């Protein structure tokens, strides 16, 4: 019996036409199929035709009429140690009072004050000539440098020691020092001055008061005796605990001096009494290095100011703008930050069936006529904005939703109407989390100069928040309402 199977095979082979037809059919079949499955895949092109036929269920709005409550906050402890360029001086600020900064620094003896010896290994006697203090300006300044201001240098009588495991001093720290100064001088700050040969100009302060002269002579005496005090660093620092540069009372400017080996130092000039070079002026430098033991103390006297920010005492307090002429303040050094609350932002959730926020921007304007281009300039860096709680803890910096990295404010300069220039920062993620999780009374934003710079900055800004003003703080939100 021939199997049907074999028969059909024979059948097929014996009929080439049939075989070919089948093959052609299958090819047609398969290629059509391949065509179909490949063509239907992928994305549509975009088209506008028929947009009026499809119901749109949403409306997208710009809403910027939120009430913004602002207030000013003062930080307790701002680390002011270890700056390469320290702030010094005093100026009167219309809003922030008499602002001043003193500098506390340790003088380094280096390898020691070792006088030259003669052939018999005996120290050549020397004579004290003068004692001066040298500093170099850094370009920064704030306030009117044309005004004459005063400076005095005093000897610190208390050891500069860190407290409580800290490794830094803070803007409110002070240490005891002699009331009598080692140096006193009136000067006009010249932060941009250069020497004729293009070198940096140094500010030479003669330490020629009674106490200053006494100090200079005493140092030389100790050196001539090859005392441990002038050869051992530890002993030297016990003997001479440091200097404080104190700003005087006059309304001048805040200026900046550089610290470092070759830049800020006390120098004693002396000359040899014997030997060949009795005419030569010799000197020994006691530099103020860049170190965490050196720090600035910031003070401001706000009693004469109309807004009286002196009312803020604790870091956990804030002074509402309504009590400070509808203004809020930011200042480096002293440490004022502006706090912003948006109490009714959750009302967005009541619009429509539901909705979503696409973008939210916080916009703030510097108060008109609170700044200018020369003396009281707007801060040079952008602001950091933090999410905070009722205790003004900086919980987290505002992040970009896409890169998950902190973002800073952007200054939008209006060249036609400079007064309408403003700062903006995208706070979409923050507002979105308020909408999703509900807002506590505690939720707020803090606007600050960059935290790392706060201890070494005298820049400040006054923010306008009068609710009747076009330039009040705003939250501009683009919101989708689901109908």
């Amino acid at each position, binding site marked *: 019996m021939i199997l049907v199977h074999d028969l*059909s095979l024979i059948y097929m082979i014996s009929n080439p036409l049939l075989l070919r*037809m089948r093959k052609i059919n299958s090819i047609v079949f398969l290629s059509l*199929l391949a065509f179909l499955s490949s063509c239907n895949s992928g994305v549509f092109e975009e088209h*506008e035709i028929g947009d009026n036929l499809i119901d749109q269920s949403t409306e997208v709005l710009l809403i910027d009429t939120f009430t913004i409550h602002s207030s000013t906050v003062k930080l307790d402890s701002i680390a002011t140690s270890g700056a390469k360029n320290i702030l010094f001086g005093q100026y009167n600020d219309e809003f922030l009072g008499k602002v001043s900064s003193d500098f506390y620094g340790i003088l380094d003896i280096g390898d020691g004050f070792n006088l030259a010896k003669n052939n018999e290994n005996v120290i050549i006697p020397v004579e004290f000539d003068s004692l001066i203090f040298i500093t170099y300006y850094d370009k920064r300044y704030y306030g009117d440098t044309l005004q004459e201001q005063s400076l005095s240098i005093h000897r610190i009588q208390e050891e500069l020691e860190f407290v409580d495991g800290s490794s830094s001093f803070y803007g409110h720290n002070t240490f005891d020092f002699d009331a009598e100064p080692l140096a006193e001088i009136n000067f006009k700050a010249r932060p941009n001055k250069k020497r004729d040969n293009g070198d940096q100009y140094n500010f030479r302060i003669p330490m020629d008061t009674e106490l200053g002269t006494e100090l200079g002579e005493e140092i030389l005496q100790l050196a001539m005796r090859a005392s441990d005090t002038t050869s051992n660093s530890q002993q030297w620092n016990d003997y001479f605990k440091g200097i404080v540069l104190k700003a005087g009372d006059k309304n001048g400017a805040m200026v900046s001096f550089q610290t470092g080996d070759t830049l800020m130092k006390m120098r004693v000039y002396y000359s040899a009494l014997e030997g060949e070079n009795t005419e030569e002026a010799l000197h020994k430098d006691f530099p103020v290095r860049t170190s965490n033991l050196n720090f600035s103390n910031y003070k401001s006297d706000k009693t004469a100011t109309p807004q009286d920010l002196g009312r803020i005492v604790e870091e956990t307090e804030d002074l509402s703008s309504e009590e400070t002429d509808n203004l809020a303040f930011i200042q480096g050094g002293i440490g004022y930050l502006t706090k912003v609350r948006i109490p009714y932002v959750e009302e967005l959730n009541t619009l429509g069936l539901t909705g979503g926020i696409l973008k939210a921007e916080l916009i703030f304007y510097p108060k008109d006529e609170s700044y200018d281009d020369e003396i009281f300039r707007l801060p040079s860096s952008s602001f950091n904005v933090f999410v905070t709680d009722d205790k003004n803890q900086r919980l987290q910096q505002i992040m970009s939703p896409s890169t998950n990295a902190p973002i800073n404010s952007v200054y939008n300069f209006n060249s036609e109407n400079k007064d309408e220039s403003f700062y903006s920062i995208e706070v979409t993620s923050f507002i979105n989390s308020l909408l999703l999780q509900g807002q506590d009374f505690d939720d707020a934003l803090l606007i600050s100069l960059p935290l790392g710079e706060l201890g070494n900055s005298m820049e400040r800004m006054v923010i306008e928040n009068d609710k009747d003003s076009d330039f009040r703080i705003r939250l501009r939100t683009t919101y989708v309402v*689901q109908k």
Partner: protein
Amino acid sequence: MNINPFYSTKKFIALIGFGLLFIATTTSAQNSTSSPYSYYGVGELMENGSGNSISMGGTSLAYRGGGVLNINNPASLAHVDSLKFIFNVGMAAKFTNMNQGQKKDFFNDYNLTKVAFGFKVSPRYSTAFSVSPYSSLGYDITKRELVNGDTDYMIRSLKGSGGLNQLTWSNGVKVTKNLSLGVNGIYVFGNNTRSEVINLESGSDYVYRNNSELISQGLYFNLGAQYEMNVGKYVLNLGAKYQPKIGVSAKQKIEVTNFSGSAGAVRHEDEDRGAFDVPESYGLGFGMNKGKQFWLGADYMHEKWSDTQIFDEDNDLSDRDKFSFGMEYNANDGYARKFLKKMTYRLGGFYDTGYIKFESEKISTMGVSFGVGIPMARQTGMINLAVEFGMTGTTDNNLVREDFTRITVDINLFERWFVKRKYR
């Protein structure tokens, strides 16, 4: 009895493969249409008849053939050839020019029209199984709009995808010499998804999305009847079809989200269970044979969509009326040798009011069709090609008019089963 399963098994597997491919492509939100009108109702109602009927304007109720699985009227299955196992795959490509006012656009859409197999079980009873699309949703509209109260722009994207499919079990019974009856049991399933996505043109990372999904599955049925009578030289066929209104259970899921990358949240979620109605419909057809080579006929179908509800709510759909006519000429008188004489030629036309009314303007479709049936060697199959030229909608009242050309390729393969061969 020896069965030759070798080639049939391969074809069977291929057919199941097709069926799965079909289901996969339609449920993975690929689309068989690009029309904005597919936003309405359950989507654009798909043409899923046989290639024969498509080339005759959709006329099918009074039509029958030995090698045709005419699922539209299940009673016609009673006249399928014995000893024949029919595999059927249909594919369509639609090329559309859209017009609205001065704007024009062009789309290509592709889909499978049907995957089916059927055979005569006994002298009086035949059965068939098929998978075919019922409706399709596919629009993609992107608009750039001004944010209310701002000078910035946003992009609004409206997309629809998905559609309903049906798995049909058709049965046809020859009751008497002249009368056959049939019933289709249909399992309808699918996802209809409509979404609205909004994002800002510049500098925002948040994307707002409103996604609405209608997930349906349910069973319904329809009935068919055919009656043949001789009138002189002619053979008249009458066809009728009836479908009752039946609710198909459905789940409506709405999700509104607002995300930037992976950060964000679901703003609103809702899930509703209910049903949408398959409309009560009836159809009448008449056909006339002259000899074995010529047939002509006409159909009328009425679907009462205005009576249907979706989730217990009235909808704005209107009743659908479809009128079609067609004729077929089989050039093969039994002795044909030349290729051209072996083919069957068809033509037809239709007018379909559709079930959508937009601002009291009915969106209707009309068209003409042409087709050929090409027999494969030794009666192993038949390829039916159809070309339709039609027009949907109007440009009045700022509506969209779609001018389309649709090419359908419908392939039937015949397998001889149950053939006794006695050889010693």
